[in-house]
């Protein structure tokens, strides 16, 4: 604000202050619930029962995390989430970028047709049931590959990356071609290194998508050992609610038991939420500086 602020008219001053206050309020609406979860996750469940824990733990403890890791086979779920995020993202971004480079070419015979072929899948799909039947018939359901293979390509990402490639000056490619580079080498040695911002943003979107996807694990996988973290959390949320309902419906006969179940399921839930959210919050600041650029590219297409 500074000196300039005093020169403004009264109305403009009020406008400015209200503006800042509203934005601060919005930010608090995001931070405070997370702090609440954080406080409950790091506070022993028995003590939290007494209530009065808002934005900071009353006494620090890793008890809930210990319980979560031994009870809910969360370690395995974590490993599966890491696997699908790392392998799935790396494979998908590389393959999608490669296809985007091929479709960028203006001289490729059939290029226009193939672009439309990919683009159309964004407008129309067979829907969830035929898709499920397909996954079943090629034996992808109930395997770890159902997390990786069906999301190898995304038409939307392909088009964003292609748009970025189209803006790279063609002279670089031309001179490489004169030096005897083939298309694949040009892609690897020239195009990819020049495309760091778009690759970073698409990788982030992709990784977050993998990390957050609970649907695949919930509906295409039956083996409990193959559940990723997000699905585990989703099951915890739904089953805890369901359990509470049935118990409440049982005429509240045994309040003590209801309390106990709520306490344990609550602290488990909170700790699991922290485990799910932490990796995203850690990686987020590093990739954030690429946002503006990456999103501008996406929006230009629109």
């Amino acid at each position: 604000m500074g000196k300039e602020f005093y020169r403004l008219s009264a109305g403009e001053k009020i406008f400015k202050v209200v503006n800042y206050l509203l934005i601060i309020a919005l930010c608090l609406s995001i931070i405070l619930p997370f702090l609440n979860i954080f406080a409950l996750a790091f506070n022993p469940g028995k003590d939290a029962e007494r209530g009065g824990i808002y934005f900071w733990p009353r006494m620090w403890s890793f008890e809930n995390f210990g319980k979560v890791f031994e009870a809910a086979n969360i370690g395995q779920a974590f490993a599966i989430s890491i696997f699908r995020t790392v392998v799935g993202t790396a494979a998908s971004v590389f393959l999608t970028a490669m296809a985007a480079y091929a479709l960028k070419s203006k001289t490729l015979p059939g290029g226009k047709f193939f672009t439309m072929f990919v683009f159309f899948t964004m407008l129309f799909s067979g829907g969830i049931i035929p898709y499920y039947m397909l996954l079943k018939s090629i034996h992808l359901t109930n395997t770890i590959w159902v997390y990786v293979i069906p999301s190898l390509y995304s038409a939307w990402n392909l088009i964003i990356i292609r748009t970025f490639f189209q803006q790279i000056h063609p002279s670089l490619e031309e001179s490489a071609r004169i030096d005897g580079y083939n298309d694949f080498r040009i892609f690897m040695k020239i195009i990819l290194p020049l495309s760091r911002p778009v690759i970073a943003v698409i990788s982030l979107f992709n990784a977050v998508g993998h990390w957050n996807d609970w649907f695949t694990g919930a509906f295409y996988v039956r083996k409990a050992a193959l559940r990723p973290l997000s699905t585990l959390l989703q099951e915890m949320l739904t089953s805890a609610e369901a359990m509470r309902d049935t118990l409440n419906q049982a005429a509240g006969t045994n309040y003590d038991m209801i309390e106990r179940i709520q306490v344990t399921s609550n602290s488990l839930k909170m700790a699991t939420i922290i485990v799910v959210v932490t990796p995203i919050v850690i990686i987020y600041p590093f990739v954030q500086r690429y946002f503006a650029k990456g999103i501008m590219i996406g929006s230009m297409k629109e």
Partner: protein
Amino acid sequence: MSQGSSSLLKPDQTGRKLWKKVLEHRYLYFMLLPCIVFFIIFSYIPMGGLLLAFKDYKFNKGILGSPWVGLEYFKTFFSSYQSGQLVKNTLIISGMKLFLYLPFPIILALMFNEIRTRWFKNVSQSILYLPHFISWVVVVGLLQRVLAPDTGLLNQLISGLGGDGSTYFMMEPKYFYQIMFGSHFWKSIGWDSIIYMAAISGVNPDMYEAAKMDGASKFREIWNITLPSITPTVVILFILSLGNILSAGFDQLYLLRTPGNMELSDILDTYIIRVGLQSGQYGYATAVGMLQGVIGLVLVVLANRISRKVSETSLW
């Protein structure tokens, strides 16, 4: 793909020329091949699977071998007592997200545009974009906690102010729309404002200078310069989002659904999952999904045509 001049050549020469061109691009074809195979398998074969909507699916006979039932499933859906409620719920929820929600990201972008303190802008933007990257599973987990009866933050605040702090917000149908809209707002407003901010930063600064010379107030500047300048962006984004009118957001609604709010929160997407994946009525669920997909496609095509006429910008 033949060029204009090549049509004058004899067929075998055209073929040879094309073949030569294809050979020249062989690396590109190798790079593209897995992509095309992928979309054939994972997008086009399921489109063929839409045949299910007209078949009485028998597990041992496969999709092609199962007997035809014609439009049976469509009739069943339209005559079922649920269909009206489902379509109504879907339209209300997506309508709220399309119309009611529309001005808020624009307002936020305008608010950010007035902030001159750099660090404050950076920090608050980082915080406001964050929920976009948090899954609905976590968001609903937060909601369950914050809105929990007795022990949740909101109920503690209410009882702290002397009210009754035992409301089970997630179960009460009368709070459903607030929770649904509020959580959508909370999760999306920051991220959705980015595109409008980009549009605002593209406004010619000379116009503001001229307005200042004429003694225009800040509000006049926003009303007469900024808003008209970003109208094309707003219109295009709005028209294109019309195509989603029949999908009101599966993740959010599936997870927010409780026995208490079911009558308002059950939408086409959740219904398809329930009757299809959970109770195995594959043909029927495919038919309902197909209705949704076809209407969506028609709307996108129409919206694109309108957008091309109105603003000379279109998806294709």
